[in-house]
């Protein structure tokens, strides 16, 4: 394995970390309006209050690592998806400040505004991530220089929209399971219903996405044919996903959470594995595809980045563990809460 491949894997690791961690707090945002009163909404918001920011750092680091390791991909994707990324920034800014501002003033209208903004921003951001992933899979019009030659509406085709709905569904399921772990009594019963709804939506969108991927991407199975071990991952995905309802049914929510986390990890793997060695597919000509090999930084840079990651990532995992441990258990509203 060379450094280019290693960095493709490390980017996948960062993306999976982001999808699993921010996945549930985006899901909490999408479910936010289902809470029935101020106390429930505060509990929901405070369930992610201490951790959403750290979760979002996975995205920031993913962006930074992509810039460093595959500058051509970073440049093409971020400029090509210009309008989509501006909408994403709009959503991420509003999400951040909604959490921060909502409880700062005791006014129903004020809270209502930030409630809707928190919900809308979470939904929009989650959907856009899926749209971006869908477009990466089926390809976007880019020329030989790697410059995007399409328009924003070209990105909103049926397949990317379906992947957008898939990410929203999984976020709802994942977020509901997380909330189930953090809540009690009536609110917990409410999110219990959302766990099932989220699972149902995820199941439908997952099946549709699988069928459509086969239909619109003739190349989709190329890597799976070449590397038969990869079918084990497919099977593991199905088992992990099937284990979610089983664990919910058995009343073991933490087990359900682990299962849904593993499912998301596996989906990110399948996404990356299907793409490889491409990172962005050009719908103009396969010769213009941005690949792990033609879009990467020099070997020297990738080597230094590997050292940085080797030093830094153990710390990152340690911090994450410490923070989640410190805020374990049910949400308690205190004077310091949002």
């Amino acid at each position: 394995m060379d450094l280019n491949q290693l960095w493709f894997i490390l980017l996948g690791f960062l993306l999976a970390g982001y999808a699993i961690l921010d996945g549930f707090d985006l899901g909490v945002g999408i479910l936010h309006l289902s809470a029935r009163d101020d106390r429930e909404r505060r509990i929901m918001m405070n369930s992610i209050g201490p951790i959403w920011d750290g979760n979002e750092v996975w995205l920031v680091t993913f962006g930074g690592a992509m810039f460093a390791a595959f500058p051509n991909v970073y440049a093409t994707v971020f400029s090509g998806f210009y309008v989509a990324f501006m909408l994403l920034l709009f959503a991420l800014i509003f999400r951040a400040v909604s959490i921060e501002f909502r409880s700062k003033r005791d006014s129903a209208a004020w809270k209502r505004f930030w409630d809707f903004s928190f919900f809308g921003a979470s939904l929009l951001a989650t959907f856009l991530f899926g749209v971006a992933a869908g477009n990466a899979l089926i390809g976007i019009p880019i020329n030989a220089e790697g410059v995007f030659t399409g328009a924003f509406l070209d990105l909103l085709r049926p397949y990317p929209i379906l992947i957008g709905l898939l990410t929203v569904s999984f976020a709802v399921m994942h977020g509901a399971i997380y909330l189930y772990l953090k809540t009690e009594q009536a609110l917990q019963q409410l999110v219990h219903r959302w766990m099932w709804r989220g699972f149902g939506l995820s199941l439908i969108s997952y099946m549709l996405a699988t069928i459509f991927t086969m239909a619109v991407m003739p190349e989709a199975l190329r890597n799976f044919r070449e590397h038969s071990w990869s079918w084990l991952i497919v099977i593991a995905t199905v088992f992990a996903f099937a284990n979610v309802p089983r664990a919910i049914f058995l009343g073991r929510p933490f087990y359900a959470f682990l299962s849904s986390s593993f499912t998301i990890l596996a989906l990110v793997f399948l996404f990356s594995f299907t793409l490889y060695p491409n990172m962005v597919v050009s719908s103009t000509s396969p010769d213009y595809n941005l690949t792990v090999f033609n879009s990467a930084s020099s070997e020297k840079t990738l080597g230094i980045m590997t050292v940085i990651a080797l030093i830094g990532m153990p710390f990152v995992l340690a911090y994450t563990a410490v923070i989640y441990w410190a805020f374990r258990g049910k949400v308690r509203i205190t004077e310091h809460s949002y």
Partner: protein
Amino acid sequence: MDVVILSRIQFALTIMFHYLFPPLTIGLGLLLVFLEGRYLKTKDLQYEAATKFWTKIFALNFALGVATGIVMEFQFGTNWAAYSRYVGDVFGSALAAEGIFAFFLESGFLAILVFGWDRVSAKMHFVATILVALGSIFSAIWIIVAISWQQTPAGFVLREVATPAGTVMRAELASFREVLFNPSTVDRLVHVLLGAFVLGAFFVLSVSAYYLLRERHVDFARKSFTTAIWVAAVASIAMLISGDSQGRMVARHQPAKLAAMEGIFHTTDSGAPIHVIGIPDSEEKTVRYSLEIPGLLSFLVHRDFNTPVPGLDQFGADIPPVGLTFFSFHLMVGLGIYFIVVTLYALWCLKRGTLFNRKWLLWVFVFSVIGPFIANEIGWVAAEVGRQPWIVYNQLRTSEAVSQNLTPSQVLGSIIMFGAIYAMLFAVWIYLLNDKIQKGPEPVSIPPKGSLRDAVDVASRYPGHTDSLTEAKDKD
């Protein structure tokens, strides 16, 4: 307008709004470490109240810094794709390192700092406070490495790489150490951190002076003011030394920028003057209404009054916009001198014991906080506008760096979006800051909400008890 101008406006708008927050969090972060350290040592509840009060202000600023900071990371790719392709090999690793080494540290332990008072031990909380402050400084280090490399590129080679469209040139890493310690990193870092300390100190001075004038939280305000005035004075004087060192660095590596900052249109035969005030006229190539100190620039740069300093006429067409560079630089220096004068005067009054009786001086401090905000912003304007027309000094032009697929209307649309959001955020920020400052720190003489409920809260913090209490409730 074309995409280049619009993208520059957008970058200026988003970075300048973002930069309201990081220096304040760096400055206040150190303050928190100091206050909480005092609290742990003395067990004085006043320090605890002060720590909690400033933590709330810190957290508000931090949240806005995060929300506006993510825009910056995206923008290199969205608007400056050609730049990203050209420098990604060198510049990207500093950005990624910032994420791995700084952002995770800050954002993780911020949770404990803000929400963890009852969740972890006092010592662990203090460790979290230190780590957050460290994280914000690490973040400054890495981003300044990246920015400084743009100003004084080092440790790279230009290499041709094959693409489907043929071979293109890009900068590739040659020496990571030289990139890290490029000629301007250290000077810039010191200058930026001092700028953050000055801002943090003036912020505390402003709030404390306001309390003193309103005769609220007087004890708290006196302690805060007395500490902050020392920090402000020392940092402001250190700034002078740092500024001098940085000026000489600019003279060595970016002489065109220095000439624009000082309005030196023509290379002098002997010593070059400082224009204390004046209006540069690029048409006539002169500084109007100027008050000059002959030879001083030469002395500052070369430690000799008679050594010539290259003027803008030496650099052909590749010179930065003189007016903006000149004014922003001069305003920054003027403010810096003001900080020294006002803090030294306040210290002198403090020594004589008359400080807290001088209402006018306290009012001056209430409003002086605007000064460091402006100085931090326009210092960067001078540095970055002074780098033009280059985006990477002497390597890549700003005009060649934008994304090729963008249309002016797309960029105009995003400028309007950011403009509207930031105007709203600015209003809410000021409103909430004012709200928190009006509420002030919790009074320490009355035991906080002493009641049975608190006893239950305290008891329920122990995990074992939480379980049993919850179970008991469920069975009801």
